Every structure is written in C-alpha cells, then in structure tokens.
C-alpha cells in the first residue's frame, strides 16, 4: 500500500458533523460503564427480587442480547454507513463466531448429555464414533476464541479479496453476499456437516468451569458484552476519525475519484470488510452463551437483511446510530412478538419502507439535524 497514507483533503462533512465533543464523549462512556458494571450487577444480584429497583434475569438476558446485536449493527455501519458497501451476509459471520464458541460449549457438556457419551448428542444420534477432524482442539477455550476471530475473518478476507478485486459493488455485491449466507445456511442444515444440522447446538452446561445458568455467570457475560460494545465504539471512532476513515468515506461518496487520486480502494475495502466480519464473529461468540442456542436459521438471508435495518433505523454514518437502531428495533420486536405477534412483520416492513423513504439518516440524523 504505497500510496495509502498520503494525506487526502476531501470534504468529509458527515464525519465532521458526527464528531462528538471529546469531553462529552468520555463523560458518556463513564456513565455507560457505571450503568453496565455497577448498577446492573447490583440491581440484578444484590437487590432482592421484591424491590422495585430489582432488574430481572430476563431483562439482563434481553439487554445482553441486544448489546450483541448492537455490536453487529456497528460492524454493519462501518462497512455500509461509512464505506457504502451493503452486505446482506453479515448474519453468516455472526453465526460462524457463534458456532465457534458453540463448539467449545458443546465440548464442555462432557458426559452430561442425554446419551452420556463423550460425543455431543447429535453425533451419537448419527452413530459417529469420534469427533471429525475439524473438531480437534475445540475442548480448549483459547483455541475456540481464536476460531471466533479467524474463521469469519478468513472467510471475509478471501471472499472480499476476490469480490473487491473484480470491482463487484453495489447491488451485485449485496446479492452475492446474500447467496453466500444462503449457501452456508443450506450447508449447516445438513446433518452430515457435523454441526448438529437443524437443531444446531444447545443444552450448554458450563463455560470455563462456571455453570452457564448461574446468575453470576450471566451477569459476567452481560458485563463482558457491554465492555466489548464500548470497546468497539471507541475502535470505530478511532477508525472513522483517522485518515483511513476519511478514505473510506471518500470511497463511499466517489470511488472513481479516489482511484484517480492514486489510492487503491481494494485494500481499504478489504480491511474494513474483514474487520467488520471479525467484529460480527465476536458478537456471535458473546451471543451464544447468553441465549443458549445457535442454529443455521441465524444464517438465513432474512436475518442478515434485518441487520441492515437496525443500522438504517439508527442512522448510518454515525457511530451511536446503529446502537440506538439495534436497541429500538429489538425492543420493539420483543414487545410486539409478545403483545401483538401477528403485527410485528407489518411494523418491521413499514420500518424498512419509511426509514428508506423519509429517514435516510435514521434517528441519529434527526438529532444531528437539530444540532446543525
């Protein structure tokens, strides 16, 4: 990348506009950390269930889940909001991270499965006698943690390299990412693939020796997820405010002109695409122990396209937007699917339409407009 870091003075209005004043930012992060690491643990674990201040396990799990989604939406924002590449396959990276973690969790069940075998129940069911080669070392947490990063990262790198090299972009790229996650879903649905087929992985017992259902474990996972979210927000901020980030925005707004200025967009795109996939994988790995299940439906095209709407609702091209969007859409979803289950698809469909027609910069855009 010889020409990569030559200063480039493009008008990056969007990035400027969304720059949050630094002192406010640190205050906000401090407050968020207080809430995540102090208020929640106390209200959930210490305050008795009868008190009005008690936060139920259900709420903790729901918010933990939503924070995972927020991380995914943030990853989507980096690639779509800032670089202008709409991926309809991010659910695949999320699920791959989840499956990598799931492999470790399956191994930690030990002989406590229904068949009391060293192998997971689904393998006993298939009459397999030993773990297939790709399950080797998965009993070690560090190895699976490595897989969480490497598998989505490598897949994204290889796929992205070929796609960006042949300058596939726009809708073409979206459609082939959708085909990719669809193909992967079909592949994981097969029983012979060795990942539990339809049912995926479930019935986990423990993680790193701690019981996975214990309130303290749940709270720890919740806090780690929160820390990850804050960390990725800061990472995202560092990226979009760097020169690298400006080139990304320039690629989004006028890719041809970036090329004419002597930059090769390939490496920039490839970097942010791979990073985005890795972040998704980590989010998936945090998601699985909290939710307790991972199956191929996470890879369905519909799931991936929903990620895009989280980002769009919140406001792409801003960092806080995707977090807001993921929270709004998923809180809405969990409320609707309980109260008015048959109306949720109408609401979601309308969200897709109204946001694209009337709110191109999302909820965060409204706030920015008022400030401007």
């Amino acid at each position, binding site marked *: 990348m010889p020409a990569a870091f030559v200063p480039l003075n493009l008008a990056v209005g969007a990035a400027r506009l969304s720059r949050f004043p630094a002192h406010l930012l640190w205050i906000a992060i401090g407050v968020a950390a207080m809430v995540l690491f102090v208020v929640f643990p106390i209200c959930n674990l210490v305050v008795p269930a009868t008190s009005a201040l008690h936060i139920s396990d259900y709420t903790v799990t729901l918010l933990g889940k939503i924070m995972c989604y927020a991380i995914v939406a943030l990853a989507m924002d980096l690639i779509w909001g800032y670089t202008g590449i709409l991926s309809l396959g991010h659910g695949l990276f999320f699920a791959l991270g989840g499956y990598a973690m799931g492999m470790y969790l399956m191994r930690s069940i030990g002989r406590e499965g229904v068949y009391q075998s060293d192998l997971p129940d689904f393998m006993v069911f298939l009459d397999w006698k030993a773990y297939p080669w790709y399950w080797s070392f998965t009993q070690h947490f560090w190895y699976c943690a490595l897989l969480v990063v490497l598998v989505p990262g490598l897949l994204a790198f290889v796929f992205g390299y070929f796609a960006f090299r042949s300058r*596939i972009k726009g*809708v073409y790229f979206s*459609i082939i990412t959708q085909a*990719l996650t669809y193909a992967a879903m079909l*592949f994981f649905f097969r029983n012979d693939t060795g990942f539990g087929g339809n049912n995926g992985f479930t019935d986990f017992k423990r993680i790193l020796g701690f019981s996975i259902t214990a309130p303290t474990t749940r709270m720890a996972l919740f806090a780690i997820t929160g820390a990850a979210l804050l960390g990725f927000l800061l990472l995202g901020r560092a990226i979009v405010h760097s020169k690298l980030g400006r080139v990304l925005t320039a690629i989004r707004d006028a890719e041809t002109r970036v090329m004419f200025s002597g930059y090769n967009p390939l490496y920039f795109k490839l970097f942010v695409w791979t990073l985005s996939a890795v972040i998704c994988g980590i989010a998936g790995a945090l998601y699985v122990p909290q939710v307790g299940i991972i199956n191929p439906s996470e890879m369905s095209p519909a799931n991936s396209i929903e990620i895009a709407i989280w980002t769009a609702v919140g406001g792409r091209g801003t960092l806080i937007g995707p977090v807001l969007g993921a929270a709004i859409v998923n809180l809405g979803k969990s409320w609707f699917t309980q109260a008015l289950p048959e109306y949720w*698809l*109408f609401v979601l469909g309308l969200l897709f339409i109204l946001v694209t027609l009337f709110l191109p910069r999302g909820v965060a855009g409204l706030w920015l407009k008022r400030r401007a």
Partner: protein
Amino acid sequence: MLLYLDTLIDRVAVASRWLVLLAMLLVATHAGGAVNPETIRDLALGEGDARASAIAAIVASGDPSALSLLQSMKDGDVKTTGDDRVYLIKGEEAVDLLTGKTVKPVPDNLDDLVINNRLRRELGMAIAALRLSSTERAARLAAARELQGGADEITLPAISAALAAETDAEIKNILALTQASVQLSSNDKATRLAAVRALAQSDSGSVKTLLLALLERKGGEYVERDAELRAEAERSLRAVEQRLSTGEMVGRVFSGISLGTILLLAALGLAITYGLMGVINMAHGELIMIGAYATYVVQNIFRQHFPGAFDAYLLCAIPVAFAVSAVVGMVLERTVIRFLYGRPLETLLATWGLSLILIQSVRTIFGAQNVQVENPSWMSGGVEIMTSVVLPWSRIAIIVFAGGVLALMWVLLSRTRLGLFVRAVTQNRGMASSLGVPTVRVDMLAFGLGSGIAGLAGCALSQIGNVGPDLGQSYIVDSFMVVVLGGVGQLAGTVYAALGLGVVNKFLEAWQGAVLAKIAVLVFIIIFIQKRPQGLFALKGRTVEA
C-alpha cells in the same frame, strides 16, 4: 382335458387372435358353458395344491365366464355352507355353483371361503391372465402390466397364448418380457437361454435384478452352474443396464429442463424489473406468491359456482393471476419504488419491507397454512417413454407455458409500441423524455408487466408445489442468481442461464444430493461473477460506471 388344451394351445400358437378366441369358444362349449364343477369345488374348498391346480385349469381354459367367477371369489361374494355346497351371492339370491340352480332366499348359514394371501395373489394373476384375451386394448394393457410383477408357472400358458395372438406392439413387448422372466426358472436349458436373450430387450429395473440373481455368487461358487447361461445373462445384463442408464439420463435431462423452466418463469419478470429497469425488487417472490393465491381463489370460485367446468379453471386463472400481480406491482411502483429510482440499495431495503408486509397480509387473509391447489384432471398422469421414465403432464404443460410466456414477452418488447418505449427509456431516459415518451407511465407499465409475469409464474408453480405465504421466499435467491448469471438486460441470457442452471443442478443432485448441488451452484455463481461481473451475455459497449 388339460393335455388336450396344451396341444391345442401349441397348435394355435402361430394363429391369429380370432382363431384363439374361436378355439376358446369351442372349449367353452365343450365344457358345457361353465367351469367344471369339480374345478370349482377344488378351487373353493380344496387344499393349497388342489386350489393352485384348479386355478391353473381355469386359466388354461381361457373361459370368459370364469373371469367373473374368479373376480367374485376374490371380492368375497362366493361363500359356502360347509357341506360341499358353494354359493355365489347376488344380492337377495344365491346361485349354487355346483348345480347351477338359483336358491332363494339366501341360505343363512354361509361362511366366507378361506382365502390366504397366496391364493389372493394367484386369483389376481389369474384374473389378469384371463383379461389378456379382452377385445379392448386398454384392458389388455392393464392386465399385461399387472402380470409383469407377478406372473408364474400357472399364468405362463395364458401369457404365451396371448403373446402369440397379440398384435399391439407395446403389449406384445410387455408380455414377451414377462414370459421370459417366468421361463427363466424353467428346467429346459434351451428355454432358459432363449428367455435370457429375450430379456435383453427390457428397460426395467426388476429385470436387472433377475439377471443379477443369475450371476450371483455364494462362497466363491456361482449359484447358477451353467457357464453358457451365465455368459448370456451377462450380455443381456449389459444391454439392460445400458438402456436403464439411457432412461435415467433422459429423465434427468427432462427434470433439469423442467426445473430450468420454473426458474425461467420466476426470473423472467425480474429480467424486466431488474434487468431492464434496474429496480432491485426483493418483493418479486411475493408477487409470484400472489399469483399462486389468485389461482387458488379462482379454483375455489369454480369449485363452488361452476363445478362442471372445473377442468377449465386454470385457463381462467392465468389472466387473473397476471392481472392481480400486475396491479399490486403497479401500486407498489407508484407508492414506494418510484421515489427510490437511482438508489438501488435503498430500493432493495424498501422492497424487502414490502415483501414482509405482503407475506403477513396473505397470512392474515388466508392463514399461515399452505392451501390446496388441485391440478385439473387433464394435467394428471404423464407420458411413459420407458418403463422407468414417466414425464408428468403437469411438468410438460409448464414447459410449454414458459415457452409461450417467453414468446409473448419477446413480441411485446420488440414488436410493440410499449416495448419500444420501454427499451428507449432503458437506454436513455432523458432523450426518450425529450422525444415525448411518457417516461413515468412507461415505468409504471413496465413494472406492471414484470410483476404480471411473476403472477404467471405463481400460477404455474401452484400446479406443482405447495402454495403458502412463504412460497416467494424460496425463489428470490434463485431468480436473482439467474438474472445475474444471464447478464442484466438480456432476455436470451436469462433463458440460457435458467435452463443451464436447471440441468446442471439436477445432474449435480444425482451425484451429490440436493443440498450440496444447490450449494455448489451458488458457489459456482459467486465465482463466476468474479470473472464476468457483467454476466454470461454482457452488452458490449463502452460505459463509464458512475
């Protein structure tokens, strides 16, 4: 009498079927117009072997009146009072089969005959064997087919006689093979050799099993001792296998083309909305689904109000499905999509939202369960081109239908004013507008046309698959793949891509299973797009991307 009949059959083996009928008539008169009472007694009350030989005698007699006797016995209408009396029950009265007298009222101490599975099977075969001398071709063909599965020594003489008299090539072929497979277990070496040779003409899987049995080994020794026979069997086996694999190939190509036309139908509408207009319509699958539901509604109306014309409902459903989907499409274009022209990613998301709303609406109106769409009677059944290969009429109809839709679309786009306008707007919107082309209306009509064709696809799909709210979802990825592979803005490319994908998919399926085949095709397309981002048939020209 058996001996006499044997010689008689030998003698007429070369004569025409009329001679046989005449001879049978003679035999019948000779036997006194009915089956011999002794035989009936053996058949009804005898032990296993006596019954078998009674059936053999009846089959050998070829007596038409025996047919109804066997049939009523199989149906359980022949009963006994236990004292050597056998009655045929006909409603209020009974006929004493041994004396021929009618008894009224029916004796009250009747017992059912003991008919075990073996006897039931033999009765069935005997009935089929007797039917072989029917004068109706369809009855003979049905009988011959039935015998194919279970002929044995008893029915063999009847089959041989019928074979000699048969003039129809198809029936003759079936009978010859059946005869040969029975003769395989004969004691005479020459007969067996001839039988093995005759079996070489077969194209059925069961014959292959028969021949394989001849070549079986047990503990290093051939079960069949005769080396000459084994060699002949091997030769015949090769011929049969050859024919079987040809049949398999034909069947696979056909199902590939069938899948291809289905993909084509699903993708043709998309070729207009996406290929020509550049609108990414993720709700395309749902327009297909709406066409299928329109067909379902038309079917219900016909069933309720015009049950006599039920077979014609499909003809009425075709324009209705087109119209309903076209109107829905035009409404979508007017209300949502037109605001997003030139913003493909936003269009993609908004139309995805539309598809969710359409799915949920259909679920609310028709329920989440699949609905039943029945084929008209002329669509059931199929053409049998080989024993192992049957081409269903419904699939053939869809192939023809897809061809028709394609032709219509071609005419519309290249030979009408609207088509000219659509092409003009596609190529240069500003110029077309300056020359007075109403671009806004053309956009709407073109989108309506693409949506209407999706409706036609839904009408066709309702005939071969499940109709449910999720119908469209399963086609959307596939149909985009077809359009992308074929090249944007190219009808010919869409056709080649659809048929090619269909055939390749079916061949991979036979080799690696359905799921892996699908994955392989998707991966192939992903790789292919890397190499030729413009699709198979890219428009040549110098365009600058925005």
